[in-house]
């Protein structure tokens, strides 16, 4: 029994094996979805779309998380603020998603 297990280990040494996938540590490159998809206008009347840029409390997500370019982050912020004014999105909340 014990010998069998040792043999198995020796076989494994021939090829390099990882306990975790090497891809886990790698960061996926962030991109601006507006530039990639060619969206030029951020609609403030579309809550489902704006949901992607706010967290559970209804706060705006930072650029480092959404990956938006500065230009479109500004527009998203403006659109979210407009949506809040017309009660399409909440100003403050919990468990939005």
């Amino acid at each position, binding site marked *: 029994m014990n010998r069998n297990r040792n043999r198995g280990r020796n076989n494994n040494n021939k090829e390099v094996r990882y306990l975790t996938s090497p891809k886990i540590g790698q960061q996926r490159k962030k991109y601006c979805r507006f530039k990639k998809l060619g969206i*030029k*206008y951020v609609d403030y*009347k579309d809550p489902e779309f704006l949901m992607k840029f706010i967290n559970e409390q209804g706060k705006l997500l930072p650029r480092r998380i959404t990956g938006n370019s500065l230009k479109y982050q500004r527009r998203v912020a403006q659109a979210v603020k407009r949506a*809040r*004014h*017309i*009660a399409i999105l*909440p100003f403050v909340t919990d468990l939005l998603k």
Partner: protein
Amino acid sequence: MLKSYETVLIFNPVLKEKEVQEVIGNYRELLKSYKADIVEEDFWGLRQLAYPIKKKTTGFYLVLEYKVDATAIDRLEIQFKRDENIMRFLTIRMEKYHLEYNERKRRGLAGRNRKKTEAEKTNEEGQQQS
């Protein structure tokens, strides 16, 4: 000079649908008196608000797109402010891409009720199969 504007109005839910239509009719007249050119009128109907306004949790939404002289906007907003039927309003000067977007929306190419193009449809079918 005519400029394009978009206005979102939220009417008091205490009103009946008919009364709301009446109020909207009055604003149509008012806009006409300002020589405005109404491009589109979109009545959303009764909708849940994200937070209560004046202790109401619902409201009738109306989105208006129109072209009007810039001087009329001030007068128009004063009317909105005075009107007790209106709980909230938002007027926005439309930029180039906004106009383009609305135009596409009218043709069913953008927005929530977007019709899917042929390429997208075949793409989706392919994904479902795989």
